[in-house]
């Protein structure tokens, strides 16, 4: 596999900031991801479920986090990852994905992951294990 940059406890991944999520982005992602749940694309459906507006599906933010990881190391090095969807990502939000290496043990790096909005809201928290061997 390709050579990796130096990775040790405390290494921070270069943050990935996404342009504001438009309604068009939500429509495209619904088609591309196969998640056609109308609360993400249809204002009427979102309001009938008690939301003020449509909002981004958690898996869109997870896909952005996936971009953060695969721009850092080749995908085949990603062993596992897990996220918790902590808060709704409103339409027009501008998420930033961050990651930090917590430890490196036996060639496996443990990372903590986060997606935040400019107002400080944490929308996703997670962790990942990356094989450095």
């Amino acid at each position, binding site marked *: 596999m390709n050579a990796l940059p130096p990775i040790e406890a405390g290494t921070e991944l270069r943050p990935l900031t996404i342009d504001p999520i438009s309604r068009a982005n939500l429509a495209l992602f619904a088609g591309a991801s196969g998640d056609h749940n109308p609360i993400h694309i249809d204002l009427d459906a979102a309001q009938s*479920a008690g939301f003020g507006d449509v909002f981004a599906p958690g898996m869109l933010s997870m896909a952005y986090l996936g971009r953060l990881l695969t721009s850092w190391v080749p995908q085949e090095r990603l062993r596992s990852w897990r996220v918790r969807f902590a808060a709704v990502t409103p339409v027009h939000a501008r998420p930033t994905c961050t990651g930090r290496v917590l430890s490196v043990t036996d060639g496996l790096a443990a990372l903590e992951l986060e997606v935040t909005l400019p107002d400080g809201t944490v929308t996703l928290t997670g962790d990942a294990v990356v094989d450095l061997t």
Partner: protein
Amino acid sequence: MSVDVCKALAYRFEPLMVTAERGMLAFFAQATGQPDPVYSNLDAARAAGHPDLPIPPSFYFSLELQRPDPLGWLTALGIDLRRVLHGEQSFTYHQIAHARDSLMLRSRVTEVAVKNGGALELLTKQTSVTRDGQPIAEAVTVIVVRHPEGRM
């Protein structure tokens, strides 16, 4: 209405054989703003050593949605989809898979938990992905069912 735990744990998902088409993966790359051509351009993928476009890390969730009526298991359990949120998602990988691979997905409900005195119910669904019988990935989805009226 609360979820019938026995019915949920006994729910039978039909095994699902799926293939990620190249166009589907290129569309996913576009919709997620993926600038790395490895995920959308066959030549770039091959130059990086892949036999075809790689299936990106979170796309196994989308593969499951190729099932006819993908949310049917929730409605079959009497759950109002307007009350459903995605709580957690995880993936574990054994091998990287690519466009055109025939992948077998087998899912089951592994846990139903009640939180906040009944205001929330958490359903855990586990899916294994195999190719020619060899493990490719596991996906775990936690679905949150909100009962905003409070305790049941």
